[in-house]
C-alpha cells in the first residue's frame, strides 16, 4: 500500500511537471507528446504494479516488475539514441549557418572594398 502511494505520487508529479512545461512552451510538441504517452502507461502501472504479471508470464519473465524494468531500460536507450540523432542534426544545421554567415561576410567585405576603391580613385 505504502509503495503504491509512493510510485503513484511520483507518476502524478511527473505528469504535472510535463504538462506545466508544455503550457509554458518550454517543451516542443513532439517531445511533450512522447513523454505524455509514456506517463499514460506508467501511471496505471505505478498504481497497480501487478497489471503486467500476465504479460510477463506469457513472455517467460518471472514477474511483472522485472518486465517493467527491462522495458524501461530499452525505452531509455531508445531515447538516448534519438537525442544523439537530434544533436547530430543540430550540429549539421549550425555548421550550415556558420558557412552562410561566413559567405555573407565575405560578400559584404568584397562590396565594401570595391566601394572604397571607387571612392579613392574618384577622389
Amino acid at each position, binding site marked *: 500500500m505504502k509503495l503504491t502511494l509512493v510510485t503513484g505520487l511520483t507518476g502524478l508529479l511527473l505528469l504535472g511537471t510535463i504538462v506545466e512545461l*508544455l*503550457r509554458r512552451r518550454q517543451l516542443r*510538441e*513532439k517531445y511533450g*507528446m512522447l513523454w505524455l504517452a509514456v506517463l499514460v502507461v506508467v501511471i496505471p502501472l505505478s498504481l497497480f504494479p501487478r497489471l503486467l504479471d500476465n504479460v510477463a508470464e506469457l513472455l517467460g519473465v518471472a514477474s511483472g516488475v522485472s518486465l517493467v524494468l527491462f522495458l524501461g531500460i530499452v525505452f531509455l536507450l531508445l531515447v538516448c539514441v534519438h537525442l544523439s540523432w537530434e544533436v547530430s542534426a543540430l550540429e549539421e*544545421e549550425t555548421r550550415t*549557418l556558420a*558557412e552562410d554567415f561566413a559567405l555573407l561576410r565575405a560578400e559584404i567585405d568584397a562590396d565594401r572594398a570595391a566601394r572604397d576603391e571607387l571612392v579613392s580613385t574618384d577622389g
Partner: protein
Amino acid sequence: MVNGKRTLIIIPALNESGSIADVVGEVRGELPGVDVLVVDDGSTDRTAAVATAAGATVAKLPYNLGVGGAMRLGYRYARDHNYDVAIQIDADGQHDPRYVPKLVDLLDDNDLVIGARFAGEGDYTVRGPRRWAMVMLSAVLSRVAHTKLTDTTSGFRAANRRVIDMFATWYPAEYLGDTVETLVHTARRGYRIRQVPVAMRKRMAGTPSHSPARAMIYLGRAFAVLTLALIRR
C-alpha cells in the same frame, strides 16, 4: 499599395520551381504596386532562382524550417520594412490573388482575415477523417475566436500591423501550429479574426495526399495540437 496600404505578399515555398514563377507573375499582374517576398524554405530545386527571375524578393533559408519558420521570417521582414499589411499565399497556385483587395478591405475592422474554402464559393470537398478534423477544428476555434471559422487550416491570410508585430516575435514552427495554434493565440489576445469565402483552384503542380491512414494520423495530430494550444497560455 492596396487600398492605400503598403502591402507585402509572403509566399513560403519548398521545391515549387514548377509553379512559383506563375504564382509570382500572377500576383504582380493582378496587384500592381505590391511587393512580393518568396521565402525559400531550404528548397533543393531552383525555386529561389526562378522566383527572383519572376520579380520577387527572395529570402533563402539555409535549411528547411517548415511553413511556420518560413512565415516568421516573412513577418519579421514585413515588420522591419514597415508594411501595413502582410498577406500569406501558398506557392502552389491554389489561392487566387484577385481576392486580396477583399481581404485587405476587411482589415479596417479586423486584425486577421482568413480566406476560407467551404464558405460558399468554389467546389472544394473533403471526406472521412480529414473532414472530421476540419469540423472539430472549426467548431472549437469558432468558439475561441467568437466568429464563424470554417477553414481553419487555410494558408491564405491577411494580417495588419498589430498582428505582424506579434507574429514577427512569436510564430510556432510545429506541424499545424502555424495555422491552428496561431488562431488560438491571436484570439486569446483580443485580436479580431474574420473569414471571407474564397474559391480555391486546383494546384498548378504537385499532388495532395489521399491515403486513409495519413488522414487518421492527421486527425490525431490535429486533436493533439488543438488541445495543447488550448491549455497553453
